[in-house]
């Protein structure tokens, strides 16, 4: 049985600093993992992916999801539409489960149920979540080659809080960020607050 722990206080403070930085894109602080030109991801089918291998890639999007968070699951159709909209514009997508207890088999079933159209990764030790300073699902991290996290936050503002949902979103934050990245522009709102389920961090690193 895994014993799960709250984040250590120093880690939390760093995270807070990341969250309150709004003036322009923050410099890569915890992102050495993403800065590695040979950064390699292995999906649940055993396939390896090297996002930076292709020089036309403008950003890798890590979408932190979970099999049983209703807010995260609600967004799959929206994410699919975004994938279609930005097809051919140098955006490469990955779905990341940051759940230490999740099996490949359950993740595979979830991917089939929700028709996920990108590689699915298991981040059981939270290496990706910590590097991206992700805390919740759903949360999207848009990473530029070189490792800068150009955007971290919600997909849009449909959810205002737990159980509080708009009929339709008024801000399409992830879409705006991707449009900026695809156009070679800085992201105007690089950090937003996500509403969703917390990633179960453990203290072991």
């Amino acid at each position, binding site marked *: *049985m*895994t*014993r*799960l*722990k*709250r984040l250590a*206080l120093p880690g*939390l403070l760093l*995270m*807070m600093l990341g*969250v309150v930085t709004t003036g322009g894109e923050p410099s890569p602080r915890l992102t050495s993992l993403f800065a590695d030109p040979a950064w390699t991801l292995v999906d649940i089918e055993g396939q390896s992916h090297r996002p930076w291998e292709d020089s036309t890639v403008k950003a890798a999007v890590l979408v932190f999801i979970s099999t*049983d*968070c*209703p807010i995260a*699951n*609600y*967004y*799959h*159709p*929206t994410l699919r539409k975004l994938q279609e909209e930005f097809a051919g514009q140098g955006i490469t997508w990955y779905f990341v489960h940051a*759940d*230490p*207890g999740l099996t490949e088999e359950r993740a595979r079933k979830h991917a089939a*149920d*929700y*028709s996920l159209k990108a590689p699915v990764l298991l981040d059981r030790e939270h290496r990706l979540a910590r590097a991206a300073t992700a805390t919740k699902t759903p949360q999207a991290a848009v990473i530029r080659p070189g490792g800068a996290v150009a955007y971290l936050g919600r997909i849009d503002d449909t959810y*205002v*809080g*737990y*159980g*509080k*949902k*708009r*009929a*339709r979103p*008024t801000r399409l934050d992830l879409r705006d960020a991707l449009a900026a990245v695809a156009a070679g522009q800085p992201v105007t709102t690089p950090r937003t607050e996500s509403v969703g*389920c*917390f990633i*179960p961090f453990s203290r072991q690193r």
Partner: protein
Amino acid sequence: MRHTVSLLVPMAVSAGMALLTGRAQAASVVTYAEHIAPIVHTKCSGCHHPGQAGPFSLLNYEDVSKRALTIEAVLQQDYMPPWPPADGDARFAHDRRLSAEQKFQFLAWIAAECPEGDLSKAPDPPEFPDGWMLGTPDLVASMQDAYQVPADGPDIYRNFVIPLDLAEDKWIKAIELRPRARSVVHHALYFVVNSDAARERDAADPEVGFRGMGVPIRERIGGYVPGTIPQRLPEDLAYPLPAHTDLVLQTHFHPLGKREEEQLTIGLYFADRPPEQELLSIQVPPNFGRGAGIDIPAGESRYVVTDEYTLPVDVTGYLISGHAHYICSEMRMVARLPDGTEKRLLGIDDWDLGWQGEYLFDEPVRLPAGTSLHTTLIYDNSEDNPENPFSPPRRVRWGEQSTDEMGSMTLLAVTDDAASNATIKRSYRVKSLETARNVVERGEGRERIREEIQKRFGTLDGALFSRLDSNGDGALERSEVPEKSRSKAFQWFDHDDDGRISRDEIEAILGRRPPAEPTGDPVAETGDDARLRSEVIRQLRESDGALFKQLDKNRDGHLIRSEIPERFRGKIFDRFDVDGDGHVSPQEWEAVQSAAKQERD
């Protein structure tokens, strides 16, 4: 900042716990096995187990500790366990909230990083019978076909008929709903509707179920929201379920990212015999707020609607509920007793149409004759209300679509004897009529008809009239109106039932002036309205109570057009069919009649 708060609160809580328990190391004392498991099992697991509404299970240490931070957030925001009623003067059965001490313990346990304790001593998770919660129902019925719930898009409201084919009257003690895809069914309200009307309405919509209500509701008999534990009505109380009625389930779906197929099944538990006293539904304002002045200007952040009804006899209240749509923000019902004391019966400070429960009083509430039931409804139609379905905000009026508004609170109560029952029914009819009259006086009914016409015919301007009037005699005959709109057109416009629609008749319905902007004041009565009303009243004086029964040839309890003598037809439907559904229900009939009597006296 939020992180800081979320850290500090549990710390303070731990300190509080230390004081509470008198131990030096409180945080290490709170363990899953000893303290948390019993809370989880009694307050969370009911919905959070496989097959239930909760999106994940909360049954054991791993389930709970893994979601500790999410649990902390939802506890601090009072989002879970879900319980909309604010503290008032009445206590409710099945209160799902954690006690202050339980909440302290839970937060302290999370702050202490979820100590397990001796898991071998933890209580076993509760067993949930995979069958019906109250044993085998007396009647199990399902939707005839499955409805496809799409993967995404806005929430869906749809009504489904559960055919019952009942040959005799029954009395319902309890109802359990079993959805096939429970996670997408957010809530369902149960209505009793005449089988003919329900099935006809269903057949008129090509897809499974139908939108909007548009059928006369005979009874509202509670509903399902996540967390509802099926319960038998107390004592000998039961809801009537007359022969030849069906259940109509008004269902709210949350699309959840993948397609689902829903075919609702319902289990009914019947009483052995009819109850001694009828469970009366005292709705304030009546008719879900139609005529209560729900006409909310765009941008208005605090629009208040109040109504009251004074009980003519002693009653005992058993259940209470409220109903409204998206932009309602608060509602409360207060009982003002003749001795001047007040009882806050139900208050909801942050109305959410997704959690509209029916609350059973822990102890029945005794209310003496002369008590005023006072309802306050507050609406936020501003841009700042995230639940506003319109951006930018639009004027919102009473209506049956979920983007229209409604608003009322209902006390379910019984009287002491049959005579009091008759007295309160008479008095409530008058109340109901007074409200219904506002519909006419404020022009609310006319406006809705005008909108329907625009939907159906486009604008009904002079050009359209001239085009239809092919023989150019200044009136439309049946043959001049397109067949698909013929019966509606004549129902709406042909006031004098002479088989012709004159320009004047159209003007009478549409009003000569463009719709006035809402001022909060009733629209002044036009000469036409006054003449029509006095004519209806004159005809009523010539009729008596037995007339309704005599007219109701198919004995379905409602009057349809063909049952009404031609010379009454147009005016009767104008003035009696208060909810505009094309049927005159006994309630509508009696309401108008007793008003006429009042006016005469």
